[in-house]
């Protein structure tokens, strides 16, 4: 069973993962039996009563019902689906009953990244950090279209809506780093709207919580920029190798430093520090010709030093920087 589970499923990290996988196995094995009855029944009947070359065409049996057989087709599946239904609901109630002592983390979905706000202050982008063995309540909302917050290892998923809060919870039992996906289609960057959940032991978590954000203060600007580039999800839409993605590549922008950039309304501007700052904080005001104006504003998501860092990082990019 364990090896099969390892093959079929992602790791069982949350407290209810095993129960859900067991529900799967219950349906799976009963389905296998039913499928075997249909398949072998069908093959047996088709072969036993096959029309052979030398057979005479004759009147065939008028048998077309059998009360015992038919009742069993109703009663047995009815029992099986009743068990499935009750099990499914019972486990589900467990999944929606948030323990009172849960730590509440606010998750905001936005095309195409996730922001996590922690109760003690501090926030992260595309990286959810949680302590192990403690119930975590996730409060979800979206800034634009509908997304869906999906952590396969927790067997947890919930749609992220723009007009109301949805709630889910889990209690992670095993430390590690696991993927988070967006499961509701949300446009161009949908398949890149990934994040990860880092499960730490509670002590580490407290240390991390105290330091969140501050650990970056000592880094040189360009190194901090390189870190923010992936941490703040710029990487989702902007490459470093010159190839266009959802937005223009950083490398291209860096190579064009000091030159004119043409926008989709026909106007243009010189690529300089102010242009970059403006592009990050008010991306809709200047849309590079040939691209869709889909970037969200980073107003409030980056402080001044972080803005400086991203600009410094972009300037360092060269053809052979090999990142």
């Amino acid at each position: 069973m364990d090896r099969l589970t390892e093959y079929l499923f992602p790791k069982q990290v949350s407290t209810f993962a095993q129960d859900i996988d067991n529900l799967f196995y219950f349906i799976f094995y009963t389905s296998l039996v039913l499928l075997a009855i249909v398949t072998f029944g069908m093959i047996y009947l088709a072969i036993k009563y096959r029309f052979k070359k030398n057979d005479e065409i004759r009147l065939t049996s008028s048998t077309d019902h059998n009360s015992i057989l038919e009742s069993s087709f109703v009663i047995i599946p009815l029992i099986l689906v009743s068990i499935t239904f009750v099990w499914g609901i019972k486990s589900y109630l467990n999944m929606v009953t948030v323990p009172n002592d849960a730590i509440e983390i606010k998750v905001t979905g936005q095309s195409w990244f996730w922001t996590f706000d922690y109760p003690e202050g501090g926030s992260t982008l595309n990286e959810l950090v949680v302590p192990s063995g403690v119930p975590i309540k996730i409060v979800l909302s979206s800034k634009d279209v509908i997304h869906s917050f999906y952590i396969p290892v927790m067997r947890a998923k919930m749609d992220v809506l723009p007009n109301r809060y949805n709630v889910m919870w889990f209690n992670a039992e095993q430390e590690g780093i696991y993927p988070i996906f967006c499961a509701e289609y949300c446009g161009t960057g949908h398949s890149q709207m990934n994040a990860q959940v880092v499960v730490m032991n509670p002590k580490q978590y407290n240390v991390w919580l105290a330091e969140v954000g501050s650990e970056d203060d000592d880094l040189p600007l360009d190194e901090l920029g390189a870190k923010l580039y992936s941490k703040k999800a710029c990487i989702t839409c902007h490459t470093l190798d010159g190839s266009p993605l959802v937005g223009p590549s950083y490398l291209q922008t860096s190579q064009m430093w000091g030159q004119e950039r043409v926008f989709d309304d026909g106007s243009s501007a010189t690529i300089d520090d102010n242009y970059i700052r403006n592009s990050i904080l008010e991306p809709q005001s200047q849309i590079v010709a040939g691209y869709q104006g889909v970037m969200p504003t980073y107003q409030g998501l980056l402080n001044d030093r972080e803005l400086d860092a991203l600009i410094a990082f972009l300037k360092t990019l060269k053809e052979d920087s090999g990142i």
Partner: protein
Amino acid sequence: MSDNHQNNYLTYPRGIMSWVLTLDHKRIGLMYLFGGMFFFFLAGVIALGMRLALATPEADFITNDQYNSMYTLHGAIMIFLFIIPAIPGALGNMLLPLMIGARDVAFPRLNLLSFYLYSLGAVFVIYTILAGGVDTGWTFYTPYSTTSTTNVIPMTLGIFVIGFSSILTGLNFIATIHKMRISGLTWYKLPLFVWALYGTSLVQITATPVIAITMVLLILERLLGIGIFDPALGGDPVLFQHFFWFYSHPAVYIMILPAFGIISEIIPVHSRKKIWGYKFIAYSTLSIAFIGFLVWGHHMFTSGQSVFSQIVFSFITYFVGIPTGIKIFSWMLTMYKGQVSFTPPMLYALSFLFLFTIGGLTGIFLGAVALDIHLHDTYFVVAHFHYVMQGGTIIAFLGGLHHWWPKTFGAMYNQTIANICAIGVFIGFNGTFFPQFLLGLRGMPRRYATYAQEYAEIHSYSTFWSLVLGLFIFIAVVNLLWSLRKNNKLDPGTNPWGALTMEWTHTTSPPHPHNFEEEPVLTHGPYDYDKVIVKPTFKK
């Protein structure tokens, strides 16, 4: 000679206008058939393009936007231009009057109008493709669909127009079944395909108006910002999902019930055996059509609807499973003490039984709320509905096409090639979609243009087998078309399967322009293989 060609609806009357303005249900059925097959081919090619792009984790030769547009068009075209209209529009039109001994459907002009509305809708869809596609998914969820810069309006207008075609066909069939049966053909003597069309038509006329209204609201929201779905104006995007699935879940039964009807015809004929549990199959068709209206919420198990709604929708969902399960057992038991021939239609019907059983059983997994939370919007769902829609409906459609091909065209295809293709389609299909259950269990979300490395191996299997699947469907269709060459005509009296339904016993192949040369008289029931012997005749 002139007398001869006047006995064939394909050759009489002559001239292009006799087709364009035809009121003959058979010709309208044929036009639906070729329209549907064209879109099946188009959406199939798009699907293969997607599978090729998904063969490796990176976006290889298409951009994310192109991928999103492709999967949207694949789904929308397959559903709205092929699966929904194909069986009722093509096989239903062709066969319904013949099966009940009628001269035509109740409203022939309305029938032609349906076809032209379908064509008009198709024009909108083709415009959408040429204008650069649409990227919302066939589900058009707001607020993405109200903000997307792609061609949402032409696409939804197309669906709106096609909806009317669907409603009018349903109306026509219901009137036809009630009023046009020959004397003595009581409800319990109807072929089950007719019952299936009846159930389908009921759903078409009751559910389709809802999608039409929803599409109009979506268009108004985009054009005028009326605010029904926009939270900024006090609307609710989840309301759209309720409207959408209130149609689209019953639409699943518009797609599958006619397939049930085809299987209920093929298995008795090719087993030369009275069908098992006639009344049960007939009534389960109606009960599935009814229950289908009450389960739309299971598409929204992760939307945050109330716990009470989740429980109720899960509960009712299982009630669809029970009648469906008994149907499967009934079809299986029909072979008991029969004379089973392994003809191409029968092979398709047997593979339907296997594939649809998997499709149905995997629905049980998804109906269990706690498990659905993990599987929702993953490839498990993709695999599930392809087992139902392709493994169910399209396999049944192919079976029906092979079954009624000699009736429709008076020509027989190469049966050996057809058998090989039926097996090839079966293998290719399982190879393509079975691995996708595993992808879903492992957490791969659907509608991803690129994906994590860990899923790469399984995706590459799926892509390989999808090419096999595509190839065999292509050969199967070419094999059918090849039979239409000159000098391959069958004797008009041909009944190659020894079938007992009226379209085989009371008229020629291909049928007379007026269906029956003289007023048909009911001589036996559709499944009286215990009372009447009709030998298969197969003459050139």
